[in-house]
């Protein structure tokens, strides 16, 4: 250390200060770079989807148009958004996206009817009723369920839910012969898959409710059920609702399980034993490699992908809005 300069009150850090601050700046830049990668990737995905989807609707990508390619109508928005037949790869093609949007929404709603009640009840059980011993066993089990690859759920649907559980029911009760795939099987398997998501996030929210509130209610002669439903659930509602939205987003984007469970037949049907096709299932079937780049069916992938992207984005915005609207109220 140089002795000529005024050492000050000991806050300049001596000779190493310059290097420390430089290292600090480097760390900061590195961390920012990592954070930026995710943002850039998201933007890039959105841009690629948008650019390619343009060629589906306008006959040329935006980037091509900038270079002088002329826009000519290929598939009209009216046909895309209102047409009731989806068969872009057919000899007589049809470009109405509604049947596969129906497929996706039907699976999502059906799955929510499975995952939300069962997941919420499981969360209440874990947080309010289960003894420490039971909780210690049940929680890891649920986490295992959440970690199973979705393709395995798909095989579970195709090998068990559909043939062993649903087929006899359809046959004996309704006289319907069900095929390899069914909408109901897709709803059930996606519902089961997303139970752990609902239960684990909801349970975290419920456990965070202070015991003071529970004791206040017990001291007034509330039963465990009163406390669970009238104190804990309302107090944790924003976290619980976040888990629902997450599960629904997951169901919208779910691909492998739903493709194997619900099938490849794009149609709008009220019959839960019918084969249907979701947006993701369509994308899987088109992306298998036999589809030539530049064909309309290739371009349709990006249009459907973009629509899916927008739907999940809407769910996320909904989640943010709800979080702000229903802040956890207890201190």
């Amino acid at each position, binding site marked *: 250390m140089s002795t000529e300069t005024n050492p000050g009150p000991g806050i300049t850090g001596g000779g190493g200060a310059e290097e420390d601050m430089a290292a600090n700046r480097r760390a900061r830049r590195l961390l920012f770079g990592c954070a930026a990668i995710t943002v850039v990737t998201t933007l890039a995905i959105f841009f690629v989807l948008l650019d390619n989807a343009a060629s589906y609707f306008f006959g040329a990508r935006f980037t091509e148009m900038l270079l002088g390619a002329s826009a000519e109508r290929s598939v009209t928005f009216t046909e895309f958004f209102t047409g009731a037949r989806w068969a872009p790869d057919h000899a007589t093609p049809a470009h109405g996206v509604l049947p596969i949007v129906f497929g996706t929404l039907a699976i999502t709603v059906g799955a929510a009817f499975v995952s939300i009640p069962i997941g919420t009840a499981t969360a209440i059980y874990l947080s309010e009723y289960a003894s420490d011993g039971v909780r210690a066993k049940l929680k890891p089990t649920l986490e295992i369920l959440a970690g199973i690859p979705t393709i395995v759920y798909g095989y579970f649907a195709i090998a068990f839910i559909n043939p062993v559980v649903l087929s006899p029911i359809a046959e004996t009760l309704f006289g319907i012969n069900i095929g390899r795939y069914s909408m109901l099987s897709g709803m059930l398997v996606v519902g089961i898959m997303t139970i752990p998501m609902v239960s684990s996030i909801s349970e975290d929210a419920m456990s965070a409710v202070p015991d003071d509130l529970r004791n206040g209610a017990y001291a*007034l002669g509330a039963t465990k059920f009163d406390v669970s439903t009238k104190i804990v659930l309302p107090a944790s509602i924003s976290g619980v609702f976040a888990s629902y939205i997450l599960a629904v987003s997951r169901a919208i984007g779910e691909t492998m399980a739903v493709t194997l469970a619900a099938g490849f037949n794009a149609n709008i049907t009220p019959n839960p034993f019918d084969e249907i096709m979701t947006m993701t299932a369509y994308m899987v079937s088109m992306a298998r490699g036999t589809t030539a780049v530049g064909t309309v069916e290739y371009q349709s992938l990006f249009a459907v992908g973009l629509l899916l992207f927008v739907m999940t984005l809407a769910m996320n915005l909904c989640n943010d809005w709800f979080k702000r609207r229903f802040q956890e109220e207890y201190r």
Partner: protein
Amino acid sequence: MATDHESEPTTNDAQLITTDVQATGTGRNGEPTEPVVTARDLDVHYGAEQALNDVDIDIPEHRVTAIIGPSGCGKSTFLRCVNRMNDQIDSCRIDGELSFHGKNVYDEDVDPVALRRKIGMVFQKPNPFPKSIYDNVAYGLRVQGMAGDVDLDAAVERALRGAALWDEVNDQLDSSGLDLSGGQQQRLCIARAIAPDPEVILMDEPTSALDPVAASKIEDLIDDLADEYTVIIVTHNMQQAARISDKTAVFLTGGNLVEFDETPTIFENPADDRVEDYITGKFG
């Protein structure tokens, strides 16, 4: 029982109560009072640790009984025995007898939910529910299934008046209980406790989280409450015990009830030296 080593093998509840009346003496108006809560040989353990040791006490009706003593001497534990809130604590084990109107609350046929409907509780930290003021006060009536039988609006008003809060909140019953100040929140919790009209109100250091002005409002309120309810209040503030209570129980380390008597006697002329030391600040 086959092996009864009591000196009086025929002791039953009725006899217990008669002797206790003599032991308890007279109430505020000079009439004899019956004990509402009685403990006999009450031992409480948390796991291996003993929190109450052989406690015997008769708590009189319609009076304020203060429980004082140093931190960790079992005051809260005793209070939680009375309404069985100790049931919530897995490691807690209770031996001996704790009776409410002569009935041991730890008998197998006692439903703790029903018991808590007769014994309200106010906690150290104000803990209003994240609900409206109205719903906070109505909560007990609703869970107790009384909401259909009584005029809920009138009951809520009565409880808020009883807790000296009505004038401050009558125009904002729909706003959240959490928007009130700390002292108001605690009075809301008192209103919530008295709304279902219990017989006993347990208070565990109800003013220790409040500023002195808010605390003194609660103290005034406690005095009024004793006209209708039996109040058992834990406090580590001896001046407060001296100001507001009729009788005082002194617990000392190890969960022992050392002395229980009229409050002036405890503070001016305690029988036990350890109590004298504690009161004068030599101990605890």
